[in-house]
């Protein structure tokens, strides 16, 4: 700014000379000032990044008994592993906590960063060549997109072996892209759950249904009793509005058409508008597009589109709605102090299949995706895929956020879960008869899975026909 001191027009020569010299002097002062300012900024920046790792020091714990399991990871003192995720406070604390023993015994430092824009940002960061060491990716579809950027590195063999041992082939397949295994599963959730009030059910003599026919009959009974609407549904979720209905459809495809058709549908071996899918969508429509059945506590069918999914199950508590289909994580949406459990104010039952012996389970999960193959990163990946970590994380979640976290890791000790819903979910997930299928919209290409499918379901619930909705989604499927 000082550089722009104007020289008055018409000033005599000597005057100009003097002014020039003076401005010259000021210029150097300005430079010095600017440099000083920059120095302060740089000092401030390096202050935050320059802290040396305090944990470990000289790999302090390596000798002690509690660190025996960690000896194989070697001494990683002074190494830092960066993690980037979409899991923000308060759920991030149990994560950070679960890595503490690893940090203590190996001397490595785990730097956990998270923000809600993770799903957009991770792609941008990967494409820009600035990825974290490890990302917690919540969708196989996003994992495939990340692998396509060429920045994801394959999981080390030890991780593959752990996944074979603790999860099994179907989970391993979800972390596999184009025949190569990239990402081990971490957390999981069960989506095939129906929330209800055990007290309301007992008071009215309603029984938890064990087959689809019983569920339909129960819906009719509740509707004709007239005390409350049988179902409450809400799909509003900002730009992701519509996703709860994609879960409904996936659950019903699994039940009316079976897991094999489900796999073909998700991988687009059969078109999105296949008659079998239309049948499943109509089955959903028979429940939630019938004004007699919805929308308990909110109004007519159209309110499904405008009710926030977080609020959608709350009318169960005040007796204006009997049932709400939503994943295990919905437990966190009830007001604090709500008794959740078989004898509490709310609990959940497994959304039944056609017969009581079939157990298709819709769920979701997260995948530990690495962008670097440095030894410390691979060591953390390996640790992350063990039963040791799964139990550490379950314990941390139980004590910090009162649960709300489960995993399909077979090494998980149910005793480490405190919350009845977590226990129920873990039982469903680890039941050998269960046929687990991952959330289909999360595996479809983004143009469908986080675009046309969401939007199509929103239009559908507002009155669009089943066939036009499915045709439109099919048309949005990328051709390449």
């Amino acid at each position, binding site marked *: 700014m000082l550089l722009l001191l104007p020289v008055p027009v018409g000033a005599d020569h000597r005057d100009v000379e003097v002014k020039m010299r003076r401005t010259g002097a000021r210029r*150097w002062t300005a430079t010095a000032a600017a440099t000083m300012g920059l*120095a302060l900024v740089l000092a401030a920046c*390096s202050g935050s990044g320059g802290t040396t790792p305090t944990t470990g020091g000289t790999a302090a714990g390596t000798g002690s008994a509690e660190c025996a399991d960690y000896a194989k990871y070697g001494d990683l003192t002074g190494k830092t592993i960066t993690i980037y995720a979409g899991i923000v406070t308060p759920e991030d604390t149990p994560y950070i906590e679960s890595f503490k023993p690893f940090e203590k015994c190996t001397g490595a430092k785990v730097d956990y960063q998270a923000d809600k824009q993770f799903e957009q940002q991770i792609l941008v960061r990967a494409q820009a060549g600035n990825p974290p060491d490890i990302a917690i990716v919540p969708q196989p579809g996003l994992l495939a997109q990340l692998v396509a950027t060429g920045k994801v590195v394959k999981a080390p063999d030890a991780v593959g072996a752990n996944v074979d041992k603790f999860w099994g082939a179907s989970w391993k397949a979800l972390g596999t892209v184009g025949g190569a295994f990239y990402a081990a599963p971490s957390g999981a959730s069960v989506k095939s759950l129906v929330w209800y009030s055990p007290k309301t059910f007992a008071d009215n003599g309603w029984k938890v249904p064990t087959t689809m026919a019983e569920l339909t009959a129960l819906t009719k009974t509740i509707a004709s009793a007239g005390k409350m609407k049988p179902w409450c549904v809400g799909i509003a979720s900002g*730009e*992701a*509005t519509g996703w709860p209905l994609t879960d409904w459809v996936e659950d019903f495809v699994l039940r009316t058409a079976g897991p094999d058709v489900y796999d073909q549908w998700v991988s687009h071996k059969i078109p999105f508008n296949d008659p079998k899918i239309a049948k499943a969508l109509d089955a959903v429509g028979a429940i939630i597009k019938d004004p007699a059945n919805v929308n308990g506590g909110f*109004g007519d069918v159209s309110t499904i589109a*405008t009710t926030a999914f977080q609020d959608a199950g709350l009318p169960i508590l005040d007796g204006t709605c009997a049932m709400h289909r939503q994943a295990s994580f919905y437990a966190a949406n009830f007001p604090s102090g709500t008794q959740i459990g078989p004898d509490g104010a709310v609990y959940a039952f497994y959304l039944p299949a056609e017969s009581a012996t079939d157990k298709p389970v819709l769920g979701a999960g997260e995948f530990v995706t690495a962008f670097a193959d440095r030894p410390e990163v691979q060591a953390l990946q390996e640790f992350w895929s063990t039963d040791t970590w799964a139990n550490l994380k379950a314990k941390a979640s139980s004590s910090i956020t009162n649960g709300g976290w489960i995993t399909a890791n077979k090494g998980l000790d149910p005793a480490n879960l405190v919350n009845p819903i977590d226990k129920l979910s873990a039982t469903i997930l680890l039941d050998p008869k269960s046929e687990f299928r991952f959330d289909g919209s999360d595996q479809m290409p983004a*143009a469908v899975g986080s*675009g046309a499918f969401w939007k199509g379901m929103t239009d559908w619930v507002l009155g669009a026909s089943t066939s036009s909705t499915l045709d439109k989604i099919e048309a949005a499927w990328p051709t390449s």
Partner: protein
Amino acid sequence: MNVADKFLVMVAALLIFAAIIGLVLFVVALLEKRGARSVGWFFVGPTVLLLVVGLAYPAVRTVVRSLYNAAGSAFIGLSNYTTIFTSGDMLVVLRNTVLWVVITPFVATAVGLLYALVVDGARGEAAAKSLIFLPMAISFVGAGIIWKFVYEYKYFDPTLANNPRQIGLLNQVLVWLGMQPKQFLLNQPWNNLFLIVVMIWIQAGFAMTILSAAIKAIPLETTEAARLDGVNAVQLFRFITVPSIRPTLVVVLTTIAIGCLKVFDIVRTMTGGLYGTSVVANEFYTQSFTAGNQGLGAALAVLLFVLVIPIIVYNIRQLRRAEAR
């Protein structure tokens, strides 16, 4: 790298920075003494450089990107543009953008102008002005959330004893008047108008402030002469006020129009672009970052750019004409 090393690097970086700036200033000083024209380049240079890096390069990249497919792996010509002008959903997006750009500037300016005229010279002018100017201080996202609550819907069944309480102000008023509450943000195409109201609410204050200043700047002699000629209030407005503040009117109209072309926050906060309310800027974001179709997203960005150009050209011409007077 330990702390000492880091500190050394920092000092080195600072010294290099100081050396470069010193060198630049030294050269400028030398050239300045000789009175060379090239000294101008030293002042313009950084700006030009930043414009090239921050504006020209991304603009060119976006145009190129808009000719590629969703993943950016294959050249597909003008297909993305064909999609914009043929697919049903995209046509709704274009229709909405037209609605925004046509309705908002005129209504907001009209409201602002009327208000400016009414309160001009009245008692409590300052207070009245701050009242309508207040929404300007609220961010678009904040305004979106406020109005989302205003429009909030809860069902109301007159036959039931205990209906849920209406949270939304507007629906509560409807219920008081004995009417049924409405889903303001759901029913097409009226929901667009309810979104546009939010923008008008924000921008009317802006229009009022600028126009009020322009009205006050009309020379008293002109108005007095007109009054002596016997004009009434309407004629005074028609033949004196409007022609005198015409350049300001144009600036206000075009500024709001550009704001409406770019509108994103309000739509995103209130409906997420659903129920047929999406606009170009919102669709651009959704396609690029949620649906993973960066080609189509880029094409929408280019379209937005092309649409803004004529308004800016008109705006600049008007400014020049006003200056030339």
